[in-house]
C-alpha cells in the first residue's frame, strides 16, 4: 500500500465512522458561526497581487481590494467601483466616474489619483496593460471622482482588461501604495474591498485573517463572480494553510474548517461519503492540461516532431491519470475553454479520433529526430504535473524516443523552464503544467497561447499565423469577428503546435453543510457566503 492509498483508506475509514454516527461532540471545536474557516489552494506567503501573480494572492486580494470592473458569470465586464463611463465617438477617449462614498480601509476616500496610480502599476505588469500603455496618450484625473483615458488607437477590450480574473487583475490601491515599483513587493495592505487583512494575525505559511470592512459600500445588484454587490455575511474569514491534503480532508470532516478550496481527486470519494460535507465542482471553466515543448532545440524545433506528439497522444490517458473519474474531464481538440462563447474545435482534427502511432512515427522520421535524449521535466510535488509527466514518458518511449526523465520539484521546474540553454546544458525539451480555464476563454490573459518567439511563454514558440490571429481578435469589432479570429487561431495553434493540450478537466471544492452561498467560479468568492451555527 502506498502513502496515498493509506491516507485514503485512513480518512475514508474516518468518514465512514462519522457517517455511521460514531462521532461524539467535538471537545476541540470552537468555531464561531461568524467566522468562516477556509483552506486555500496554497499559502498566502505574500500579498501583492501585482508583484506576485500566483492565483492564491489574487484570490485573497479580491477580498481586500476592489476593482473598477469585474467579470460576471457570463464573462462580461460589469461596473464595480465605476459608476459610469463615457466613450467618445472615435472610441479614443474614455471618461470614467467613480461611485460616491468609496473608501479605503484607512478611512480615506478613493480618489481618481489613486485609480491612476493603481492603473499605472498594473499596466507595467499586465500584457493587456502594456498594450494599452503603448497606445496611451494620457491618463489623467479630471476631478476627485473622474478620470480620463485618451488613446491614439481604439482598444475595444479595455473593459475586459480592467475586469478580468486573469492575473494580474486590476486592483485599486491608495496612490502611496501603488507608487511602489511594480517589480518590488508592497508592504502596506490598505485596501478598497469588502474585507481588511488583519496584519497582526497574518502568519505566512500558516494563516491569514480577514475582517469585514464596515464602511464598504456594496453595489445594489446581485453579486456574480467579481461583479455586483459584494455582501459579506460573516465577520471574519480565516485562511488556514494546510500543506497536507489528508489533514485538510480530516479537518473538514471533523468540523475544524468550513470550506476547502481544492480537494485532490483521490480524496473526493471519501468526502462524498461524509454526511456533513458537500462536494461540488469548483469552477465550471475548469482547467486545461498542457505540456510545453521547447521550440528552440531539436527535436521540437521541428514542427513535424511536435505534430508527431499531437498525432500519438491520447488525451484519455492523460485525463485518467490526472482526474480518474470520466465524469470530470473531456477531450479538448483545441486550446480554448469548452462551453464558453468563443470555444472552437476548428483545425483540431489532429487531436480527434483514434490515436495513430504509426503515423506519428512517420512524422517523427520526417523531423530528422536522431535519437538524442529528450529532457522531460516532471514536477513530483504537483500531482497534476506528475501524472501528466508519467503519461508523456510512456508516450515518448512508445514513439521510440530517448527519454531523459527529470523527476524534480516545482521550484526547480520553474527555474529550469526559464533556461534557454540547450537541453543537455541545463535546458529542457518539455515540461508539464495546466492552465485555468478562466484564462483560456480568449487571448486577453492567455500567455500560453502566444507565439511571439523570445517574448512568448516558456518554450518560446514562433508562429506568425498565431500572432496574426491574436491581433485579429483584439481588433475585432463584433462577436462574429472575434469568433472567426479565434477559430483561425485555434487552427494555427494546432498546425504549429504552440503547445500540447492534454485535455479539459474539472476540479472540486468541498464545504461543511452548514455553510451556504458558495458558488462555482474561477476563484473562491466569499461574498454571499454564510454559516449557520
Amino acid at each position, binding site marked *: 500500500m502506498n502513502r496515498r492509498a493509506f491516507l485514503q483508506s485512513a480518512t475514508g475509514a474516518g468518514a465512514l465512522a462519522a457517517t455511521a454516527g460514531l462521532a461524539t*461532540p467535538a471537545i*476541540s471545536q470552537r468555531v464561531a458561526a461568524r467566522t468562516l474557516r477556509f483552506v486555500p489552494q496554497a499559502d498566502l*506567503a505574500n500579498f501583492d497581487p501585482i508583484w506576485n501573480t500566483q492565483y492564491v494572492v489574487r484570490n485573497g486580494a479580491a477580498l481586500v481590494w476592489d476593482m473598477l470592473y469585474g467579470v460576471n458569470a457570463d464573462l462580461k465586464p460589469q461596473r464595480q467601483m465605476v459608476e459610469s463611463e463615457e466613450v467618445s465617438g472615435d472610441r479614443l477617449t474614455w471618461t470614467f466616474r467613480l461611485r460616491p462614498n468609496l473608501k479605503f480601509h484607512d478611512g480615506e476616500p478613493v480618489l481618481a489619483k489613486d485609480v491612476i496610480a493603481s492603473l499605472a502599476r498594473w499596466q507595467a505588469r499586465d500584457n493587456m496593460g502594456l498594450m494599452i500603455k503603448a497606445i496611451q496618450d494620457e491618463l489623467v484625473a479630471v476631478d476627485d471622482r473622474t478620470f480620463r483615458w485618451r488613446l491614439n488607437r481604439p482598444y475595444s477590450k479595455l473593459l475586459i482588461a480592467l475586469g478580468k480574473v486573469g492575473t494580474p487583475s486590476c486592483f485599486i490601491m491608495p496612490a502611496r501604495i501603488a507608487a511602489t515599483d511594480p517589480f518590488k513587493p508592497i508592504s502596506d495592505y490598505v485596501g478598497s474591498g469588502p474585507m481588511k487583512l488583519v496584519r497582526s494575525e497574518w502568519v505566512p505559511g500558516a494563516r491569514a485573517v480577514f475582517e469585514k470592512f464596515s464602511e464598504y459600500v456594496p453595489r445594489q445588484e446581485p453579486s456574480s463572480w467579481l461583479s455586483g454587490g459584494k455582501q459579506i455575511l460573516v465577520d471574519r474569514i480565516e485562511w488556514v494553510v*494546510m500543506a497536507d491534503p489528508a489533514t485538510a480532508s480530516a479537518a473538514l470532516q471533523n468540523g475544524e474548517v468550513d470550506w476547502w478550496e481544492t480537494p485532490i481527486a483521490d480524496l473526493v470519494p471519501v468526502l462524498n461519503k461524509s454526511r456533513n460535507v458537500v462536494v461540488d465542482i469548483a469552477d465550471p471553466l475548469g482547467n486545461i492540461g498542457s505540456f510545453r515543448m521547447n521550440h528552440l532545440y531539436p527535436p521540437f524545433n521541428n514542427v513535424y516532431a511536435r505534430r508527431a506528439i499531437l498525432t500519438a497522444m491520447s488525451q484519455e490517458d492523460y485525463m485518467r491519470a490526472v482526474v480518474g473519474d470520466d465524469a470530470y474531464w473531456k477531450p479538448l481538440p483545441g486550446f480554448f475553454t469548452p462551453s464558453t462563447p468563443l470555444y472552437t474545435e476548428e483545425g483540431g482534427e489532429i487531436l480527434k479520433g483514434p490515436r495513430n502511432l504509426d503515423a506519428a512515427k512517420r512524422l517523427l522520421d520526417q523531423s530528422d529526430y536522431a535519437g538524442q535524449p529528450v529532457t522531460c521535466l516532471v514536477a513530483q510535488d504537483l500531482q497534476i504535473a506528475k501524472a501528466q509527466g508519467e503519461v508523456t514518458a510512456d508516450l515518448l518511449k512508445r514513439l521510440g524516443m530517448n527519454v531523459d526523465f527529470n523527476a524534480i520539484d516545482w521550484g526547480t521546474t520553474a527555474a529550469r523552464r526559464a533556461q534557454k540553454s540547450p537541453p543537455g546544458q541545463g535546458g529542457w525539451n518539455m515540461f508539464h503544467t495546466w492552465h485555468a480555464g478562466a484564462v483560456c476563454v480568449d487571448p486577453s490573459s492567455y500567455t500560453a497561447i502566444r507565439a511571439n518567439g523570445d517574448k512568448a511563454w516558456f518554450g518560446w514558440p514562433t508562429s506568425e499565423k498565431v500572432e496574426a490571429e491574436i491581433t485579429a481578435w483584439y481588433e475585432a469589432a463584433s462577436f462574429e469577428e472575434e469568433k472567426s479570429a479565434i477559430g483561425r487561431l485555434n487552427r494555427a495553434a494546432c498546425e504549429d503546435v504552440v503547445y500540447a493540450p492534454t485535455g479539459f478537466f474539472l476540479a472540486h471544492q468541498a464545504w461543511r453543510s452548514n455553510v451556504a452561498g458558495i458558488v462555482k467560479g474561477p476563484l473562491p468568492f466569499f461574498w454571499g457566503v454564510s454559516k449557520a451555527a
Partner: protein
Amino acid sequence: MLNYVVRRILATIPVMAVVALFVFSLLYIAPGDPAAIVAGDQATPADVERIRESLGLDRPFLVRFGEWVWQILHGDLGTSIFTNLPVATMIAQRIEPTLSLMAVTLILAVSVAVPIGVVAAWKADTLIDRGIMALAVLGFSVPVFVVGYLLAYVFALELDWLPVQGYTQLREGLWPWLENLILPAIALGCVYIALIARVTRATMLEVLQQDYIRTARAKGIGQGGILFLHALKNAAVPIVTVIGIGIALLIGGAVVTETVFAIPGIGRLTVDAILRRDYPVIQGIVLLFSFIYVLVNLLIDLLYTLLDPRIRY
C-alpha cells in the same frame, strides 16, 4: 569551569562561520529560482528577469555572501524574498509551536522511555523485555506520518477526543495548548522513545553487572532502589548523551509532524522556504538550529559534571 564555558561559547563562532558559508554555498549552487516562483505561472521570462534583478539575485556570489554576512554581524537575518518580512520576525512567529512540540515530546519520551528501558534491563531476556524491545523496533520502523495519520484517525476522526490539526498558543490556556500537541508529540516521540529505551536498556544491563550493584543487593536494598538510585544514576551519562543527540532527530521529525498536523512551526517554515527557494529564510533557520544544537551539546557536556563527579573541565 567558567573558562571551559567561555571557550566553548567562543568555539561556536568558527562553527557558525563554517555553517554560514556551507549553507550559503549550497543554496547558491542548488537549482531553483525564487524570482520564477514569485512571478507566478502567467509571468513572461522578461518579468522573471526583472524580478530577479530587483531581488538582487543576479549579483555575484561574493557580493551576496558579503552582504549577508554583514547583515548577520549586525544582528539582522535578512528579509524574506516572498513575504517581505524580516526573517527574525518570521522565526519569532513560528518558534513557539516548534519549541512547544519539542518540549512536550521530550518530556513524554523521557518519562516513558527511561522507565521502560530500565524495566527491560531488569527483566532482561523475559517476555516483558522482548515485548518492550519489539515495540522499540516498531517505533523505529514506522514512519512518523503513518503514526500521525493513525492517531488522527482514531483519536480525532473516530473518537473525536482531540483536534486533527492546528496549534493554540500557551497564553490561551494550558489545556487548549496541550490538546493540540498530544497527538503530534506521540507521533514524533515514537522514534525518540524507541531510541532512548534501547540505550537505557543496554546501559542498564552493563551497569547491573557491576560489583557495586551486587554489593547493594547484598546489603538488602530493594529492587526499586537498586534500579533507580544506584544503577540508573550511573547509567545516566550515555542516556543523557542520546537525549542530546536526539534533539537533532526531533528537529528533523518536526518537519513531517508539523506538516501532518498543520502546526505552524519552524519545520513547516523550513519546508515552505525550501520549496520556494526563499534563501534568507533557509539560511536564517539553519543558522538558528545550528546554534541551538551547539548550545544543547554544551548543556549536555555541563550536565555530565552533575551526573558523574569524576568528570571535570
